């Protein structure tokens, strides 16, 4: 089957029921997407399909029906997305393992709701676990990024 990830189309030969997460990580060596729980409980594997945030651990390879964007496709160290700039400015990460998923979830939130309230942020982000407990900083960084994107 063919998968388009971050603008590049790949031919992959995998079982229909292999979760997208493992296609990305072990077949395509795209490692920004993380395995945390495998059952859509933690959000570490969040990517976008056609701009919609999905849990790649529960999305079967055969069901991927649009272009996939991972954290690597959102921005890079040399060309940061506004959310990544805000994550750096607020020094959000501790271990950082959940943050790819947090940022991808936040990106989907901001495309739906450009100026989210605290309640909007809590609603959108509560499926993403952070075991280090950086929630206060994530809230602040989402607001900073929303402000920057509004100005732009």
């Amino acid at each position, binding site marked *: 089957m063919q998968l388009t990830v971050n603008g590049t189309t790949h031919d992959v030969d995998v079982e229909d029921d292999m979760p997208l997460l493992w296609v990305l990580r072990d077949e395509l060596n795209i490692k920004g997407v993380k*395995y945390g729980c495998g059952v859509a409980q933690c959000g570490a594997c969040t990517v976008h399909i056609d701009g919609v945030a999905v849990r790649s651990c529960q999305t079967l390879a055969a069901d991927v029906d649009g272009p996939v964007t991972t954290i690597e496709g959102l921005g890079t160290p040399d060309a940061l997305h506004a959310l990544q700039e805000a994550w750096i400015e607020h*020094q959000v990460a501790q271990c950082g393992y959940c943050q790819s998923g947090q940022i991808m979830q936040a990106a989907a939130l901001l495309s739906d709701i450009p100026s989210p309230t605290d309640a909007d942020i809590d609603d959108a982000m509560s499926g993403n*676990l952070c075991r280090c407990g950086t929630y206060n900083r994530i809230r602040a960084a989402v607001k900073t990024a929303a402000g920057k994107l509004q100005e732009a």
Partner: protein
Amino acid sequence: MSRIGKIARRSFLVGSAAVVGGVAFGYVMYKRPVANPLLDQVAEGEAALTPYVRVDASGITLITPRADSGQGAYSVQAALIAEELDVELDQIRVDPGMPSPAYYNTALSAEAAPFRSTDDSFAAQSTRGVMDALMKFLGMQITGGSTTVPDSFEKLRLAGAVARETLKAAAAQQTGVQVADLKTARGMVELPGGDTLRYEDLAPIAATLDPVNDVTLRDPSTWRLVGKAMERVDIVAKSTGTQSYGIDFEVEGMVHATVRTNPRRGGGMIEFDSASAEQMRGVQAVVPITNGVAVVANNTWRAIQAANAIDITWADAPYPAEMEEHWQTLSDSFIEDRRDSRMRDDGDVDAALDGAEVIEAEYRAPYLAHAPLEPITATVQVTEDRVDVWTGTQVPRFVQSNVAKLCDMDADQVFVHVLMMGGSFGHRLEDRVVREATEIALQLKGTPVKLTYSREEDMTHNDTRQIAMARGRGTVSGGKVDAFDLGIAMPSVIASQMGRQGFPVAGPDLQIVAGAWEQPMQIPHYRVSGYRAPELAPITSWRSVGASTNGFFHDVFLDELIHAAGADPMEERLRLCWHAPSRKTLEAVAEMSNWGAALGPDKARGVAFCLSFGVPTAEVIEVTNTANGIRIDNVCVAAEVGTVVDPVNFENMVQGGVVWALGHAMNCEITYSDGMVDQQNYYDYEGMRMFQAPVINVRGLENGDAVRGVGEPMVPPAAAALSNAIFAATGQRIREMPMNKFIDFV
């Protein structure tokens, strides 16, 4: 003979030798410097100035032997070296280095020695000295006990200073300019005329010189980096998905493995049938390991699918099968035969309780998993004459020695490459995953094997936090707390943890009473007794160790007595507390929380205090009793840490510690049925999610003279403050965690 040999004979170890002070029995023998591990790897033209700084033509590398599980350890260690070395953090590489006894942890011994951190008496100091020597002997390169900052604070700045002065001496030799006329900045020595010499270019000369050990640390008022907000060295990578963790490690020819071992922890495997698993796509091998079986495949998911398809018959657990028996074991341990310590025994508790109106209460705290978001992994390659291990670990020296034993090799044939950890909280103090990966790799010689646990395997095979129970008896009189008698029963964490490393531990286990016996409170009749329960399920250090349960027990019982006395919870704690820096933390949270001011309807505050890991910490929690349950609105925290090394990371760590403690206090427990852990994943071990996260206001106090770490001390008071706040809001006293067994949270 090469230059390397010449340096090796001098065998300088500036970093530690210069800071290990004091004398104590048995110390002299181990005071002899150990070899500098970098010298083994130094080629001609390079200089390894101390075990913490490496300069060569490719640049400057700072060695940061304390592991980073998210607490910012690499950044803080780099900053301490860079402060004196005069380099900027964007000019250097950070490398955890190879395991070595040179990186032993001196601060960990301060916590192990039986003296309160508020005790500066000669006996306390000299005992800590003995423990230093012991740690050096054991070569414990351990990350834990909130010791990275205390252990590194002088050692790494001295290392930076010695390296800088030696590079200046090299510049003086090359140019003929007096050292006194040389300056340093941004990784260069500046000559009086403005010309500069790069450290990298001075390395070959520096390697021929005696290190300049006579250095003076700079005055704190001149610090460029320490005490200021720093950009963490890993922050860009961790915000862009480019940080590589243990689970992301790749090497040519690597295969993917997963394991299933007996969920009745420590029990054996009777038989297994892997016929169908072996037919599954991508499966390359199914091999037995200790107490279980491993699947090797060409993809992690395929390995996990195949492992789940194996039929296995497991043996029984070596501990009681059901939880009631675990609790009963603790309950039966409050007897003289099981008394492990009575480090606090002020006044005459028995007389004070005799015939008085005694307030009694019993408290419980469950087993808890660490469950860092990155499941545990290790990659191991075994060849004829060497083994390479790539893993996130807090105990690289133990890993090295255990792998060497398994492979029947010498420790110096085992190369442990420490990788970034996606959280730990104590989980990666255990090294079973490395041993298992080694067992697999031994059966696939030459092939690198990456072992990844499924979340379910990780959750059900966690060496958990201890289970614990406490019983309090006390009296009040004249509006004051008069007698306080607390007994705490738990199995020994240290015996379980160190036992798996083959170290028998003699004497009392102070973790049984940590966070309780050493509280700086002056109560007329005050006793804390530890009871060592028999070993149950395997347990290990979980963020704040003994204090994680005992801080809850001690402070909630104190709160109950204060309530019985009719006193104000803040005023009475301040009255009882004799230690000025501790009092200041209580005063700070009183001010931050506007303690005493009226709150809206259904709202209330609770306060708690705990001194652990040398850090007095006070927390006030404000809750609302809503129609749907308790909402945690905000938390105020004040902690005395001597010096706040990085205010931003400090705030982040403190907030994280509070979220950690409250999440587990609300809804987490690990329980056993039929000898197996019931909880499988985050759906039944949830912790705190964003919608529950309170606003957390943080203040770091700098009144003490010793610098302290903050990874753990925020945890012990938080659950107590929550219980006390819930009592204030509802009148319901919650004496057991998780609290959602007794009350709903929104």
